[in-house]
């Protein structure tokens, strides 16, 4: 063979062998530790849940869940990179591996848990679909929206829920399905649509972004169940356990009365449940999911417990003004229930 033929042939052979051996499976936790951050899929701009502020930094209730996972793994809540995802982009992004976890006010449904290849690591916000209408229409109930034009974001199960409800009630309507959240809000605000429909928590957020929030009212009816929670791929049990138990740690900390302010004092507590949570003494529940013994301590120290995360992002002192409602603890009139760390 001539010299100038040798190099391309060898290069081709090396590439072919390299391609064949490329896909050795590494767990998501190992990948995350190797790259040094968690890649988190969040909303493009939903105030209270996942929203970039004026400097481009992401804040919100869902964002804090990403930060909790980062705190549990690295001890530092800021080792997260965010991928803003639309309604139609979020599932392919998680399926393909573009993000490690999806915390983007996504409803836990059976098809998403099975045919999409995901598994949901708990419910961080129990919600339902509602409607927002222009106050000038004089509409007081959803059933009065017969014949109306309704704006809805594409790629969500809200589109399906809307069709189901209006079919059940025998009401006709004109749907306007738009992909980008900002465009949906703009179309509703301009008067193109009579009503806007999404999860009620999202309605509260969207109302704030209207030109004149007082010109819009949120109707009292809730037409479907929307348990929102973080989702991960279903082919990595350890990663799923990590995200699930980070969620539970936040709820358990609130139940046990551990807050961001008192967590250091709680290290000296005699309560064995708190000792197990914070990894005091021999307790090392973190080891079973590949984390440090102080995993839950790190979470509460950086972010607080579930109640504090809720109040900081969605509570009555924020513009969102969402009362705890059914998202209160089970012993406080709500249905949030942390699984015991035992």
């Amino acid at each position, binding site marked *: 063979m001539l010299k100038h033929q040798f190099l391309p042939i060898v290069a081709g052979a090396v590439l072919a062998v390299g391609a064949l051996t490329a896909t050795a499976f590494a767990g998501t936790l190992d990948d995350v530790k190797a790259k040094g951050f968690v890649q988190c899929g969040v909303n493009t701009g939903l105030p209270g849940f996942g929203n970039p502020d004026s400097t481009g930094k992401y804040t919100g209730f869902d964002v804090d869940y990403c930060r909790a996972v980062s705190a549990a793994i690295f001890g530092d809540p800021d080792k997260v990179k965010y991928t803003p995802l639309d309604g139609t982009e979020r599932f392919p992004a998680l*399926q393909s591996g573009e993000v490690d976890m999806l915390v983007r006010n996504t409803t836990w449904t059976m098809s998403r848990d099975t045919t999409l290849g995901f598994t949901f690591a708990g419910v961080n916000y129990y919600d339902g679909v509602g409607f927002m209408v222009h106050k000038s229409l004089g509409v007081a109930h959803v059933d009065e929206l017969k014949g109306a034009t309704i704006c809805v974001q594409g790629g969500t199960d809200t589109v*399906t829920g809307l*069709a189901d409800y209006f079919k059940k009630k025998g009401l006709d309507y004109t749907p306007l399905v738009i992909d980008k959240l900002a*465009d949906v809000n703009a179309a509703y605000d301009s008067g193109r649509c009579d009503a806007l429909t999404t999860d009620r928590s999202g309605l509260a957020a969207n109302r704030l972004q209207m030109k004149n929030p007082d010109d819009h009212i949120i109707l009292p009816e809730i037409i479907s169940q929307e348990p929102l929670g973080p989702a991960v791929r279903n082919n990595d049990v350890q990663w799923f356990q990590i995200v699930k138990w980070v969620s539970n740690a936040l709820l358990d900390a609130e139940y046990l009365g551990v807050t961001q302010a008192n967590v250091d004092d709680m290290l000296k507590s005699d309560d064995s449940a708190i000792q197990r949570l914070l990894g005091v003494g021999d307790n090392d529940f973190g080891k079973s999911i590949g984390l440090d013994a102080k995993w839950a301590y790190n979470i509460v120290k950086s972010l607080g417990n579930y109640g504090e995360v809720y109040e900081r992002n969605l509570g009555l002192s924020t513009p969102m003004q969402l009362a705890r409602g059914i998202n209160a603890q089970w012993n406080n009139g709500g249905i949030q229930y942390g699984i015991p760390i035992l």
Partner: protein
Amino acid sequence: MAVIEAGRIRPSRDSWWNNPAVRGIAYQVILIVAILAFGGWIANNTVTNLRERGIASGFGFLGQRAGFDMTTLLPVTSDSTYGEMLVAGLVDTIVVSFFAIVLATILGLIVGIARLSSNWLVRTIATIYVEVLRNIPPLLVILFWYLAVIAAFPSIREAIQLGPDFSLSNRGIFMPRPVFGANFHYVLIAFVISLIVAWAVRRWAHARHMATGKTFHSGWLALGIVVVVTLAVYFMTGDPLTFEVPVKTRFNINGGWTVSPEFASLLFALGVYTASFIAEIVRSGILAVSHGQTEAARALGLKQGQLTRLVVLPQALRVIIPPLSSEYLNITKNSSLAVAIGYADLVSVGNNVLNPTGQSIEVVLIWMLFYLGISVVISFAMNVFNARIALTER
């Protein structure tokens, strides 16, 4: 060592692997096998990964109930299947692309010729139009038209009444819809027959003109034939056409035909945007016709309009048609930007099929297949047209 044979020198027979012909075939075979193996490995990987993660695959989902509503031209509901929804999206894409192609061609032709006008104002306006619109991304043009349309027109409760049944608002233009009665097919048959007769009359007039030089203005006669025959049959079959009138309800105007603002803004945006490109193509086509042709036509006494129509344009079309088909394909593909404004085109409907089912790969394959199909049809039609009007050089 050469072997001399009947005056020809042939190279000595070396080992078979040094034979260039054998080498050539061997390399090609190896390359084909490698490509097929790579393709097979990718496909196998994909199917295995999908199965491992429990993600559904296959095209069975096309028969499932859609469960969501979208406002499309075809009457689909939440009880239609995913397949029917995708077809509705395809129809929407084809309709808006067709009208946008027509608009862009007409507008581009006018602007392209205007750029070559001797009138300074006309020329400058055309130049500004082309230079501004060529340099803006199509999505921005679409968003501008949509927001401008929505903002400019009044809200539905203050809709402008253009006539007893025509209204204009930011929810669209509402007009009566024709409802075809039982005997309407007679009218249609009469219409088609009258068209054929009119066309035959024109051919006869043209042939007579060619043979004897006598002109016969068949235009008005042809139009008259079509109108009179169709109307006569219409009245004879007892007015089989009624109109469904739009009715104002609490929120909307229902019934009749609606031209939605999404459709209108997408149509105008695509038409106006692509017209700027087509104008340049037309201009280059016209400039490609040698100036001697124009001078000779003027010497023969042809007026400017006749000159352009009979001498310049037929020759310019040879140069214009090939890049024009590219622009038509661009219109079809740019129509997918409809997702930004809520027009239920193929991509928009596909997104709402892709997400509940999770079958991204299958839906993307369907998208590619449909767009490829539309593009191939357009290319084929343009190639046939090109072949027909190509001037055969002597």
